[in-house]
């Protein structure tokens, strides 16, 4: 059975990187005695993946773990609750058809909430932001695995609202187009390490519309569980 699990990651777990987090999930699920399914082959590994890497230093309200079990686990969230550290809260789980494509490949957008912008920076930021949003193309050099690369980041920003000292963003994320929130903040002359950044939600794209993984699962006819 394939499940998508939604959870929040807070507190000091913000300092735990993506791979360490994935590794921790295996341990959590083992402690919870969830019957994990394993890959075939020479060195079997549990069929687990995280929907989108969360940069170190960020907290998140909506992370998604995809897992495959050898049998149906109707009380999955209850089982896991006793084995997770207090900085993780499991919001729910949904069973999806086995043939559903990996969630990792389906995610297209992410919402971020950026807090802690200094009062004195507000006016300047408002101007920089308006200027940025007013353009149709903004080329910026960003770091990629393969090295530095010039990317048009404007189409990757779907909205950016400044309200008081809080900035709300929706950015492209995933395998098709990706903009790191830190890159955008730097472009806006902000220092990411001085801000509190939370990821609020992840979305798939259905006919040009952003839908959450759980909405997608419900729409494709799978019953919600847990």
């Amino acid at each position, binding site marked *: 059975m394939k499940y998508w699990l939604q959870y929040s990651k807070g*507190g*000091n*777990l913000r*300092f*735990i*990187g993506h791979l*360490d*987090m994935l*590794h*921790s999930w*295996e*341990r*959590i*699920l*083992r*402690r919870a*005695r969830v019957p*994990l399914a*394993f890959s075939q*082959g*020479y*060195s*079997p590994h*549990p069929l687990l993946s995280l929907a989108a890497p969360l940069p*170190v*230093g960020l907290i998140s309200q909506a992370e998604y773990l995809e897992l495959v079990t050898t049998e149906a686990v109707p009380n999955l969230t209850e089982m896991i609750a006793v*084995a997770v*550290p207090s*900085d993780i809260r499991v919001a729910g789980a949904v069973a999806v058809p086995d043939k559903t494509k990996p969630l990792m490949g389906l995610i297209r957008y992410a919402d971020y909430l950026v807090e802690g912008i200094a009062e004195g920076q507000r006016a300047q930021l408002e101007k920089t932001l308006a200027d940025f949003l007013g353009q149709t193309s903004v080329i910026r050099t960003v770091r990629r695995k393969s090295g530095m690369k010039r990317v048009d980041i404007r189409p990757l920003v779907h909205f950016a609202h400044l309200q008081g000292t809080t900035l709300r963003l929706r950015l492209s994320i995933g395998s098709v187009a990706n903009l790191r929130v830190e890159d955008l903040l730097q472009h806006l002359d902000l220092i990411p*390490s001085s801000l509190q950044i939370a990821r609020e939600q992840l979305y798939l794209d259905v006919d040009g519309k952003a839908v959450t993984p759980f909405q997608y699962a419900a729409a494709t006819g799978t019953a919600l569980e847990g």
Partner: protein
Amino acid sequence: MQHILSQVEKPARYLGNEWNAVRKDHQGRITLALAFPDVYEIAMSHLGLQILYHVANQREDTVAERVYAPWTDMESLMRQHCLPLFALESKRPVREFDLVGFTLQYEMSYSNIINMLDLAGIPILARDRGNEHPLVIGGGPCVYNPEPLADFFDFFVLGDAEEVLGEILDAYAQAKSAGWSREQTLLSLSQISGVYVPSFYEVQYHDDGTIASVQPKADVPPVVTKRVLAELKPEYFPSKPVVPYLGTVHDRLSLEIFRGCTRGCRFCQAGVIYRPVRERSREDLVALAEAVLRATGYNEISLMSLSTMDYSDLAALVDDLLAKFGCDHVKLSLPSLRIDSFSIEQAKKVKQGRTGNLTLAPEAGSQRLRDVINKQVTEEDLLQAVSGAQAEGWRSVKLYFMIGLPTETEADLEGIFDLAKKAAWAHRYVKQPGKPMRVTASVAAFVPKPWTPFQWEPQDSMYVLEQKQLFLRELFSKDRRLTLNYHGAELSFLEAIFARGDRRLGRVLLEAHALGCRFDGWSEHFAFDKWMQAFAAAELDPTFYANRRRERDEVLPWDHLSPGVSKEWLWKEREAAWQLAVTPDCRSAHCSVCGVCQHLPVTTRLAKE
């Protein structure tokens, strides 16, 4: 703190929020900081401190927390922000704890201990500490000669700590409630068997620099003998060890299957100080493994001991563990293999998929030298084992050797190359078809250690060691299938100095600390020049400690301490070495009267007779 953490390379080292980390209110409790003088990934791989964390936290009246050496990036930020060394769980400054216990695993971590005391704001010298400061305690293998650290520690604890820790905490609780002075408290602690308070002993020197005498200055025992557990009870084993988020060196369940080793290799200190062999029962081990797997979610069990293949019921234990946990995809790993076909058979049972490296330790290149060191392994054993491994699909083997062993000649060095070459072609020696193996010979420089039959021997000079390395390099360059690894002789030289050093070396450690020495076990931080500068400043000759032969009747800096094994037995073993006489393992042959079972209330304890 958050701001500092976001600037360091690996913040997870300093969070203290791991699964199974123990958080207790400090109010009204004895506070114990368990310190490991190296970085998180190394410290968290150490079973000993997890045992003490477990034993201390089992007590209602005690809270034990962890503290490790901050990496250099963190240290700079801490110093910049005047943030003192803190314990991971509560983030409380270490200097506010009642007790700070360091584990002494390795001589080259001594500079980190001093740096940690400095970062904590605890006076570095024990004599400068007052009632408001913690008592600084040392334990672990290096306490069998802790003299270079004597000035920095309030007391040391010799031997298995599981039981004596409770006695120390009881005595401390009494001293605390009675409001005793530091001196009174230490005097009371010194009456506990296994506790050594160095400030109560006075060392006198001869003009030639050797020791004239070590005398008690107070009412303390003239010789402090180690504590030893007659039985490794399961309740002392950490059933809920702290699970790191960060990948550590040993990121798995470490299951200690026995303590002690009586094979009697004459260079090996662990083979003396942890005597005798005490095995856990197979039933206890399976039950412990199950409990720890459930409490941690680990996917691998490593069977830990000084020589895992020697566990008396190993084949059945491996079968039991595989049967019970194999279907949950829990791997089993055997960290050390003996050179025989039995070991290969066990390794084959636990191997999954592609075979990794096979590691074997013949230690010396010739039968003569193996007899000198009492390593009871023949060339035939090695070739049988390697060819057996080859038949099971292994393609590479790593062989551990030492150079600079007592009585070594050029023929012994050539023997290393010959043995490596023969191992590569092992299948031919057993007349089997096959392809040659890749062989890596890893060659360490011999470091004479206290409490071994070679404790009187000089270490080869750095020049001689380097010549020997060059000689081997020349030989190994002739065969592309063979790889040779060795480390710089400088580190081995310093290890030899501190392993058999005396109290005067405390001056060197202070100088080295002032020069910025730390993380000496890390090649990127090791600064040999600074150490030599420190020796010059302290006006001490390093070769006096590393390269000098001791006389039989010389007072050694550690003579007033005892692991139970007698000095006479060590000398007898030394004599036997020169006569190429082999001393068999007392588990399978007669007792050689090393002294442990004669002096201490303990005897060899096997799972299966």
